[in-house]
């Protein structure tokens, strides 16, 4: 119960922090350089793109983790989980098909929006797109929940944390120093909200961005 409350509070804190990003000045801050600075508990942090040495380190950490998970019989691959869920009546492959089908429907509606000048029609069709996108998002969240303990998803999650441990820096007397010595230091001492902020900003630098 207490843990759920903490999670809710954490989710709210993250949402509040991320809402700020919607300010255009914040967005300008994200694009001005290939490093992103942010404040957390009165300290300045930054994330940057990993260099060659850090990418090699990440690769090494990732492969060690992969071996650990693959040789441990407690963990399963995505396909194994998909089969297990199928036996319990949950068809994850159908979720993928439904999502693909809905994307096609969205494309058809977009073509209709693009081909008309009538504002009322555009607005009505926009609501249809919004509803479909909402359904897609729900299905994506469901799928992520079903597969969160698959070896593939756990490696992705681990890689994100490992990358943060390599490229998250803290400002100390006008110098940038590593925020954590290594991944063990990070796992032992990092604040969840700091990790969420670092992960979101790092996402903007090297993956895609959900603003």
């Amino acid at each position, binding site marked *: 119960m207490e843990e759920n409350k903490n999670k809710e509070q954490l989710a709210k804190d993250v949402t509040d922090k991320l809402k700020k990003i919607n300010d255009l000045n914040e967005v300008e801050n994200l694009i001005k350089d290939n490093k992103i600075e942010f404040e957390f508990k009165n300290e300045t942090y930054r994330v940057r*793109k990993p260099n060659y040495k850090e990418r090699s380190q990440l690769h090494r950490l990732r492969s060690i983790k992969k071996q650990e998970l693959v040789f441990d019989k407690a963990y399963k691959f995505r396909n194994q989980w998909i089969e297990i869920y199928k036996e319990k009546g949950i068809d994850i492959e159908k979720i993928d098909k439904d999502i693909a089908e809905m994307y096609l429907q969205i494309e058809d509606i977009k073509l209709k929006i693009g081909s008309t*000048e009538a504002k009322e029609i555009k607005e009505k069709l*926009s609501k249809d797109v919004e509803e479909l996108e909402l359904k897609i998002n729900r299905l994506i969240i469901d799928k992520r929940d079903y597969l969160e303990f698959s070896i593939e998803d756990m490696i992705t999650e681990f890689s994100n944390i490992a990358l943060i441990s390599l490229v998250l820096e803290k400002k100390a007397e006008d110098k940038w120093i590593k925020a954590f010595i290594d991944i063990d230091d990070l796992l032992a001492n990092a604040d969840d909200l700091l990790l969420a902020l670092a992960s979101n900003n790092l996402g903007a630098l*090297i993956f895609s961005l959900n603003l």
Partner: protein
Amino acid sequence: MKNNPLRELARSFEWQCLYTNVKNNINIKLFLNKEDLSRIQILFLEYLEFYYNLYIDLYTEEALISQEVIDNDLWADSYILWKRKNRDKLNNNKENRENRDKNFTGIPKITFTKKKK
């Protein structure tokens, strides 16, 4: 539907002016870093080009485009999608019109074909 702030920035007057100058080879830096662009910087450049093209369509008075369409992410995407799907049709119509105007002599066109044996 909520607009994406990155796109709002890309279609802003200030950034479109900067981008137009960069396209015209005027030495202006868009970012502090010259190389090794981040994912969001690349995405931003794509949006700058996207809105640059939309504004060209607006100023050349293409059909179905308006400031209202440009200001709405979904409507702007829909317009571009529609335009891409109809590009061949639009180009063919335009070419046919141009050829017709260029070749118009008032004399009916006769095509000679080989007689089949």
